[in-house]
């Protein structure tokens, strides 16, 4: 399935109201992608329903571009202003549910919450994409001649 129309429709409907405006940010607050606050309660988070599915990973990769994740994490998620997401190392945990939570609720050092914009299925495909990435060769030892 091409996620693009779905995502764009979601963005547009969000822009047309239907959600409360983002509150003023405090210190443990998040930036909300598109200004849309994730629905209260949140989804049930268990295992990734698409784990290891290549088609889902490819869709997740597309969403990674459409949602501007690459603008902060770099193309291929190698790290940019946001941390590398392909080094096999995680600040907030690398389990299915932990990666899901980072994307859904955001994180305090400038990771926007996407739970208001993206349906849980699209977030799981992002998780699937990130889990499919190979760490770069030079981790953890680098040597020079």
């Amino acid at each position: 399935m091409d996620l693009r129309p779905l995502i764009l429709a979601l963005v547009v409907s969000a822009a047309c109201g239907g959600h409360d405006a983002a509150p003023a940010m405090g210190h443990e607050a998040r930036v909300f992608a598109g200004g849309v606050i994730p629905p209260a309660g949140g989804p049930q988070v268990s295992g990734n329903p698409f784990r290891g599915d290549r088609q889902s990973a490819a869709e997740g990769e597309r969403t990674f571009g459409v949602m501007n994740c690459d603008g902060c994490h770099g193309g291929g998620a190698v790290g940019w202003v946001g941390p590398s997401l392909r080094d096999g190392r995680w600040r907030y945990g690398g389990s299915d549910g932990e990666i899901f939570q980072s994307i859904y609720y955001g994180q305090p050092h400038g990771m926007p919450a996407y739970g208001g914009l993206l349906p849980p299925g699209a977030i799981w495909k992002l998780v699937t994409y990130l889990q499919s990435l190979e760490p770069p060769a030079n981790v953890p030892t680098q040597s020079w001649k």
Partner: protein
Amino acid sequence: MTRMAVLTLLAVLPAGGAAQRGDWPMPAKDYAATRYSDLSEITGANAGRLRPVWSFSTGVLGGHEGQPLVVEHTMYVVTPYPNVLYAFDLTREGYPLKWKYRPAVDPNATGIACCDAINRGAFYAEGKIVYNLLDGHTVAVAAATGQELWKTRIADLSQGETTPVAPLVVKHRVIVGASGGEFGIHGWLKGLDLETGRIVWTAYNVGPDSEVLAKPRIFKPFYDRGAELGLTSWPADVWKNGGAPVWGWMSYDPDLDLLYYGTGNPAPYNPEQRAGDNKWTASVLARRPEDGTLVWAYQFTPHDGWDYDAASEMILADLVVGGRPRKVLVHFDKNGFAYTMDRATGEVLVAQPFVDVNWAKRVDVATGRPVVDSTKLTGASRGNVKHVCPTLEGGKSPASPAAYSPRTGLFYLATNNMCMDYQATRATRIAGTPFIGANTPYHAGRGGYLGAFIAWDAGVGKKVWQTTEPFPVWSGAVVTAGDVVFYGTLDGWFKAADARTGKVLWRFKVGSGVVGNPITFTGADGRQYVAVYAGIGGDWFLLSGDVRSDDPADVRPPADFMPDIARHTSQGGIVWIFAL
């Protein structure tokens, strides 16, 4: 004295009043943004004997851009996020702290800031240190005590606005702007009241004349005609997320009462989403500081498709151009051309490339427009456009301001010798996320070296000398009456060079790459000192890959265009002081 004369005098003096000859009270030392000091103890003959006399760890790892201030034997240092302000007592042994000020700064700003959580420094005025916190606030702190006097919210983080820019204080106005050209902000400049922090005026850089503060008969651009240029040069509504951030340096001419600053790139990077010139992105604007009124504007890169921000400083100098003495503004643009302009009118007098340029063949000074090479035009429908010179880091980065010596008549600047491929894609604006739409890998330019430090004659538009460097050069410069020029390198050397020949006289390895701007000042003992930050970062936080060692959960591969930078430097945060 008449009231008028008093006002003029006030305007000419540094806003501090108390600042003295050997002080460094504002980012570029003076309103003309020269970064020239008339101190002359250090000369070509003795610079080889320079030695470190003091250093201090700021406690912060990250891009240490900007520069310290020195006023009345106190040195003020602003760190990158979390924007701690230190005041060092230069009259006492070991320069102990007088105080430090630790503001509350929203950590979200570190992810929303496009290019590392840097700060470009503070401004001293009337007993206050004024600077911006990354999360969209301006603060004024009492220079004597470190007490916060006021704090004003100037920018909206949720829209992608962050505030690393150094303010300029003129006529009791604190002038500030915001970054966010990568986040689709609607760029602006604001004037705050120095006493209270109240926002007195807001001038947008794009949009309707009423918001741009372009008034009939007062606003007279040299080349452009007609009203509503900030609207008619855009598709409907696209300007509302059109970028034009303010993240570089400002200068001020008290005689003309004009404040100069450059605007950043249009958003997104994919130019096909914004047909037209996109005024006034990638432009220089001249405004009245009192109320923000726009007097003239000139666009260096119309319809920018290469991320050529015009945020570099506008240095004010009196030069002979074409045999005539002229009051000029000199600007080294990211786009690779150096512009010498009449600063009263905005007329381009000289525009010559100071690095290899191939996106345009030349600048037509009659029309003011670049003659663009159509094979270098970018856009989502054009695929991957190969080998565009210079890169979007700029022929010179706005982050590394140039210096001008009235003694040699030359300008001194750090340059980058790199080219890029530019593949644009369609971008969607989602507030609080990047609005870019381009992939732009770099490679070395002609000669294989990545940077050079050069001297430039802006009267004719010619390079006078250059010293090549293996890595891009990203530090500011300071030049002195001893005809010595100082700069730092990305691999962590701090250098003194002969301002007339470029010969490197002395160098010292400062522990981390230099992306800050050296200053020089008179110490309490009357001797000349030179200070600089070490702390690689800014764009190099993003681009250097593996120079980062502070986060076990963020391990990056080396940068493909400079795979061995991490062999020579790692992140840092050190203030250095040198003397003979």
